[in-house]
């Protein structure tokens, strides 16, 4: 059986109730996704033990952290936690901040001077510093760092305790777009290089698309949907109000570079998609995001179109969209699910119905 997290919490505050009963895999990145006030941060704090739900059960990988009799306090939970604002200790240098948790997480009796090889640590301070590129900041005080640097130190500090699970509470929300772009590559490195499960709170569809493997969609203290990323994003029966951001995320591999037209061919879902050359290497594993609004449907393959990517598809189902004029169409494209947004009138004119064969014209594919 896969390691998993089992969480049942009930929190009653004036004007807010959190009630959930969920199991999700303790591996890869699980996104807690929802608007502010949906309870995602409260859920994360319950998992960290920073909030104590009056009624709750939590087990991680079979180990009970909370039930009617058990309460493991935060400082005994093998977690790393990244706050929205880095929350570094202002009275310590960057290195002092990193060492704070690292020192306390080492088993007692082990000499501090010994290298990481002697311990069981899967993650050392040096690795954390290297991974987040903060080697040149160690002697500085938090007050002398930029917002992005602070957040990177916050992440390194959380990793330096060698956590068995990493909890991140909107680590990018307090940063402007430029800083976000600066940090996202580091987050992706975490995702690619770390073996530990990550629970990532976010209200940004973009971050979720780039980072998550599994998603819990939350609203008003309840879980609306939970499952593997693409399966969940392509569900039509959910009131996921992604609006313009409705779409799917697919995994692919860079297969070919066309230098003349600055295009890349990405092998994905048994087909080929052309997209702008982002400089990715041939053979690189990439994520593709296809927004529903960028997919249109025809009954015949059209060769006289500006759209490069036309793929045969099968209609799986139709659902209502956020506006009464629009419909979302769930398609199967050689084994993968893709969403298309069409007007209700077009759907009527094309006579779209399940099992029908159509051609999906994909106007834009974003390489994440």
């Amino acid at each position: 059986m896969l390691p998993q997290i089992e969480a049942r919490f009930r929190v009653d505050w004036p004007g807010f109730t959190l009630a959930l009963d969920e199991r999700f895999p303790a591996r890869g990145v699980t996104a807690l996704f929802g608007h502010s006030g949906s309870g995602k941060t409260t859920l994360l704090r319950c998992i960290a033990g920073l909030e104590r739900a009056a009624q709750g059960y939590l087990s991680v990988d079979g180990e009970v952290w909370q039930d009617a009799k058990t309460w493991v306090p935060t400082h005994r939970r093998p977690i790393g936690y990244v706050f929205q604002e880095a929350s570094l200790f202002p009275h310590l240098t960057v290195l002092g901040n990193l060492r704070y948790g690292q020192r306390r997480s080492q088993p007692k009796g082990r000499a501090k001077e010994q290298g990481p090889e002697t311990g069981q640590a899967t993650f050392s301070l040096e690795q954390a510093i290297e991974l987040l590129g903060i080697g040149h900041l160690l002697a500085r005080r938090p007050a002398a760092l930029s917002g992005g640097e602070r957040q990177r130190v916050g992440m390194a500090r959380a990793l330096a305790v060698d956590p068995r699970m990493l909890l991140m509470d909107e680590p990018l929300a307090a940063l402007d777009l430029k800083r976000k772009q600066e940090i996202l590559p580091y987050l992706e490195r975490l995702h690619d290089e770390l073996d530990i499960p990550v629970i990532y709170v976010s209200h940004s569809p973009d971050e979720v698309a780039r980072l998550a493997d599994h998603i819990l969609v939350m609203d008003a203290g309840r879980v609306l949907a939970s499952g593997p990323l693409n399966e969940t994003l392509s569900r039509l029966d959910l009131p996921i109000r992604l609006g313009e951001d409705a779409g799917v995320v697919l995994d692919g591999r860079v297969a070919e570079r066309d230098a003349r037209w600055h295009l890349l061919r990405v092998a994905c879902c048994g087909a080929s998609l052309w997209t702008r050359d982002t400089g990715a290497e041939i053979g690189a594993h990439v994520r593709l995001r296809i927004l529903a609004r960028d997919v249109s449907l025809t009954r015949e393959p059209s060769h006289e179109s500006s759209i490069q990517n036309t793929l045969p598809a099968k209609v799986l189902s139709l659902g209502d969209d956020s506006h009464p004029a629009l419909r979302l169409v769930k398609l199967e494209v050689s084994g993968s699910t893709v969403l298309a947004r069409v007007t209700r009138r077009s759907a009527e004119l094309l006579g779209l119905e399940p099992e029908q064969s159509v051609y999906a014209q994909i106007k834009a594919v974003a390489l994440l």
Partner: protein
Amino acid sequence: MWLTETDLEAIWLTLRVATVTTLILFAVGTPVAWWLARTRSRWKGPIGAVVALPLVLPPSVLGFYLLVAMGPNGPVGQLTERLGIGLLPFTFWGLVVASVFYSFPFMVQPVQNAFEAIGDRPLEAAATLRASPLDRFFSVALPLSLPGLITAGILTFAHTVGEFGVVLMIGGNIPGVTRVASVQIYDYVEALEYANAHRLAAVMLVFSFLVLLILYVWNPGGKKR
């Protein structure tokens, strides 16, 4: 000699009482301030009010109750006699105990404010970094509220140096034992020795001004680069 032998004796005693009182209050007042800053108990209000009482109570009232409690028929007095310490009134330690009560809010309130100003976040961050509650207090809360602690220490010390009414009630006027500087000045005035009174009063005035000058010039909140 500018100041007389008894003046110096009174000043030395004053400094000793104030130092011992401040040290005791650091040990006693800090946990109380921590509790007041962190608790959600319904007792926070009442306890906070009791802590603030010496601010508004006439020193003679405080001194009177302490005298009764520590006297031969009072509960504290009977306890100290049974323990073989004897009675506290009119002794150095009686003076210290009275000063601890008298200066209590001057220690607790600034420290409590400093603790409250830290907020929950640094302590939560420390908890996620494996620090136990006691560890969090010493490694995060105390360093972050150090300016508040220093302010509280200075205020407590200065306030204890300036006490008069409580000392008169509890300590009386025994040279070298309970006759502090403020009482010495009172004695000089009673005896119409205005010149002596002037000299000692001037020393006290300069001292008090210097203490406040340090507090106001040294701005703990604004120690930015």
